[in-house]
């Protein structure tokens, strides 16, 4: 059972590109021009695209938004590109990385079977003697590390112009909430700049057409605000720095000085912390709908749906329309494990008091967790949402503890699923515009940084604020369940280092590597925090605001470290106007 192409995409407006031919490890694969490489690979039966960093587990297309990093591979000699973001063209050459002999058939996958012998800190008490061999041991470790291959030599780089913009309201995210907030802010008379990571606003419209809860169509909303809002698509926000909001936006390196900012960055798949949840064949519900709607690619024939969100219903309808079978639908808590070797082949679930086994070749994850990285970078407090996720604190108008920072939509824990949620997102836009009317832009407000010793003399320390999470319930995920996917950190490994005495979250993070990988905690933060909650005798904050003493209710987070999304060094290297 593998993926296959339908005669046509399900969405009537989807138009496949010209047929093209590309190569995967030299093997010729058919695709359509412009479709993402990960989609072409999946359609060609290549479920596993990458290998995980530490224990070489196979991984494949999951989030399709460039966040999880499971579809990374080498493309035309460039290392570790996220293949869901790489459009296919004729003659493209790609290969998997990080395997021996390669990522498809990787003998190092055996490491995963002996993971108990190789905890993240396995080298600490080893490889010291004999002294003459010490460096050789580390050479061997070094050989197995790394992922992609870096080429030497000159290369052409994207030429980016540096652009500085001053606006009343910056809206980050061009999904439902971002568009609604931008519309409301513009109606209030504010100048609005909207950043969207996809290459078109309301990208969701390409494959899905449910109207907004207020009855309007998203395409219509996107079109109607185009005249009043400056749209920047294909824009990756790196962070809300002192210098302004900084984004790589197409051929521009953009610095936005905004009087108010609305963060509407949506949500990520919430992966249940169970063994096997990272296998190829476990795919986000929106990705499944997108595969079928936009490309006519059916990722599996026998599907298990996981989650309660609306997204499951959309994926279910698309799967049934494509002729696939939905075996069952369970909640995240009911799922016990995803079984299989190099891809998902079966699931174990807890149903009606019994453990059940079902053969499936597709596990569709419908639950979502708020995107919290911008909130954590700003030091906002967060709260457990009671369903295994965490959401930042914000007021009814989206305002936060940071003046000028507003949250809207799923990023505020208010996904756009009801008329009230629509109004809430619009309220955030209006509140941002109202505040902007009374404030000067960041640059003007702060003025230039002092270039003398005045900061040392009595000025407050400029430290990164630390967020705390309230109300986390401690969980005990299975020993073998991987909680941090980038670093392959398992439940047992977190517990082992806690037991040794590294209960401080900051120490635990460094010991295990959890939260430090390329996804920057987007997919592991809630699960890792829940596994640690209340366990630490002492929780310490990075910059001194330490909380001491056992506390089951409050967990202090490691401070957020920008950029909010990974970025190529070459993409930042464009020229910049000297602003000193």
């Amino acid at each position, binding site marked *: 059972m593998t993926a296959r192409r339908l005669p046509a995409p399900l969405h009537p407006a989807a138009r496949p590109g010209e047929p093209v031919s590309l190569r995967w490890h030299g093997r010729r694969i058919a695709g359509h021009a412009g479709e993402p490489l990960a989609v072409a690979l999946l359609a060609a039966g290549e479920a596993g695209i990458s290998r995980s*960093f530490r224990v070489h587990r196979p991984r494949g297309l999951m989030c399709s938004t460039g966040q999880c990093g499971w579809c990374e591979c080498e493309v035309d000699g460039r*290392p*570790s590109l996220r293949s869901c973001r790489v459009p296919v063209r004729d003659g493209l050459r790609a290969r998997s990385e990080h395997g021996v002999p390669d990522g498809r058939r990787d003998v190092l996958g055996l490491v995963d079977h002996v993971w108990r012998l190789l905890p993240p800190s396995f080298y*600490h008490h080893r*490889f*010291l*003697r004999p002294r003459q061999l010490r460096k050789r041991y*580390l050479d061997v*470790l*070094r050989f197995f*590390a*790394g*992922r*992609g291959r*870096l*080429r*030497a*030599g*000159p290369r052409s*780089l994207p030429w980016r112009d540096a652009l500085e913009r001053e606006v009343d309201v910056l809206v980050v995210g061009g999904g439902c909430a971002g568009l609604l907030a931008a519309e409301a802010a513009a109606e209030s008379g504010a100048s609005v700049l909207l950043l969207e990571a996809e290459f078109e606003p309301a990208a969701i419209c390409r494959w899905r057409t449910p109207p907004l809860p207020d009855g309007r169509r998203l395409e219509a909303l996107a079109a109607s605000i185009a005249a009043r809002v400056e749209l920047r698509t294909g824009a990756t926000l790196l962070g809300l*720095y002192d*210098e302004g909001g*900084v984004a790589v936006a197409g051929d521009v390196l953009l610095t936005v000085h905004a009087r108010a900012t609305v963060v509407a960055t949506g949500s990520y798949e919430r992966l249940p912390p169970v063994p096997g949840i990272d296998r190829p064949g476990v795919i986000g519900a929106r990705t499944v709908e997108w595969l079928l709607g936009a490309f006519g690619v059916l990722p599996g024939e026998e599907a298990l749906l996981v989650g309660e969100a609306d997204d499951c219903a959309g994926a279910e309808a698309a799967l049934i329309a494509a002729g696939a079978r939905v075996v069952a639908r369970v909640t995240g808590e009911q799922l016990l494990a995803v079984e299989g070797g190099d891809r998902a082949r079966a699931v174990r679930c807890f149903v009606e008091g019994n453990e059940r086994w079902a053969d499936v070749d597709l596990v569709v994850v419908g639950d979502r967790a708020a995107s919290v990285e911008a909130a954590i970078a700003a030091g906002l407090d967060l709260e457990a949402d009671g369903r295994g996720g965490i959401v930042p604190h914000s007021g009814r108008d989206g305002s936060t503890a940071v003046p000028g920072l507003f949250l809207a939509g799923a990023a505020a824990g208010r996904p756009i699923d009801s008329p009230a949620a629509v109004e809430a997102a619009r309220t955030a836009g209006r509140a941002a515009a109202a505040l902007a009317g009374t404030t000067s832009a960041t640059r003007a407000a702060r003025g230039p*940084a*002092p*270039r*003398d010793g005045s*900061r*040392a003399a009595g000025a407050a*320390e*400029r*430290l*990164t604020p630390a967020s705390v999470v309230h109300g986390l319930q401690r969980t005990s995920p299975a020993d073998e369940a991987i909680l941090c996917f980038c670093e392959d950190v398992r439940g047992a490994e977190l517990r082992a280092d806690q037991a*040794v*005495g590294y209960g*401080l979250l*900051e*120490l635990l993070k*460094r010991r295990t590597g959890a939260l430090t*990988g*390329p996804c*920057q905690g987007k997919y592991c933060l809630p699960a890792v925090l829940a596994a640690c909650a209340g366990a630490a*005798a*002492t929780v*310490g*904050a*990075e910059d001194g605001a*330490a*909380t*001491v003493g*056992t506390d089951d209710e409050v967990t202090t987070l490691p401070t957020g*470290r*920008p*950029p909010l999304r*990974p970025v*190529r*060094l070459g*993409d*930042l*290297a464009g020229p910049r106007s000297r602003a000193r």
Partner: protein
Amino acid sequence: MSRDVAGLARLLDAGPLPARASLVIVGAGITGLSFARWLSALGLRDMLIVERAYPGAGATGRNVARLRAMQLTEELCHVAVAAQATYDRMGEELGFNVLFYRLGYLWALYEAEEMERMARAVEMHHRLGIDSRLLAPDDVLRLVPVFRGGDPLAGGVVHDDAIVHHDAVVWAHLEHLAATGRVRIASGTNVVGVARGDGGVRAVLTDRGRVETRHVLNAADAWSNALNGLAAVHAPNRPLRREVLVTAPVHRAIDKAVTFYRPTEGWFNQTLRGEVVMGVVDPDEPVGHDQRSSSDFLRRTARLMVRKAPGLADLTVIRQWAGMYDVTPDHLPLVGQTGQLEGWWQANGWSGRGMLLAPYLTRLLAERFMGAEPHPHLALFEPDRFVGTGDAGNGDEDYYARYARPRDATRR
């Protein structure tokens, strides 16, 4: 692999502070931890380390742990060689692999004037038995191929220097100290006052209570100035931010820890895991506590790195952070007992060299603390050497900056 679980919990005990301590060390970074290590080996008991956040929270957890023996002055070379040897033995002595690895260190040079200057430094190294080598541009490209296609090089200097895993150094010390049972670390504890009496230290006041003691080590580095202020001890240290970025890991591609000084100071190297860490210094970085990251740093670093080493352009930046240097006017630390207050010991002002020098110099300091004659290597770091000089230290006198700006070079 048996470890003393109870010991580590005791070491990091979050309970009430002890009423008195033989010595209070302020700062649980590399300085405080290694000073406690050496003193416990010399028999001192009942030490207390007071730490405002958690062990390794300051510069110790925010540096990239490059251990360079080849320095630019003869005095510093002597000390640095001994300091590197201290790390070489650390793993065996503590029974913990701190990943000491002789990656090799390379200065990339861009101007003829730099080459002449460095040729003299290499001569000096050879006199001291440091086996550095002057390289032609082709040698540099062969050793570090990512430079290919970048700004034309004048040459380079290479030496068999090392990197270490800074976090592992912290864990090694924590586990060692846990086993000795002679010290406790109070995390999340701020010093709010120092009680003096009869010209000496009497107690340290913290936000969690008072601890009677006759001896205090100021190992707070970038926060040392405030602590000295509480004790009315004068020192010229100034905090200065340095920023770092790290990329997603790639296979072994860069086989030297690289530093260049033209047009401004910058550096990069690959960790054993394959990540590349790098940074370009802002010569005009203002003095002051600032541990936040800037986008200016990100862009400055990307722009210069890609110009010099185009091969780095394909790397993906996944994190950036900032740490604090504690800078003295001559960029050498203060290590020793101050004459200003009896029982007040300094080991701060590391000026970016703490990771390298602290384990060695705290050993000499510990011997001094227990009554030995001062080691000649401590002479360079006399803590009161700036008293009465009016300080004049604002970071502009940077040792590297002096090197990087030949016009006003004032090398000793």
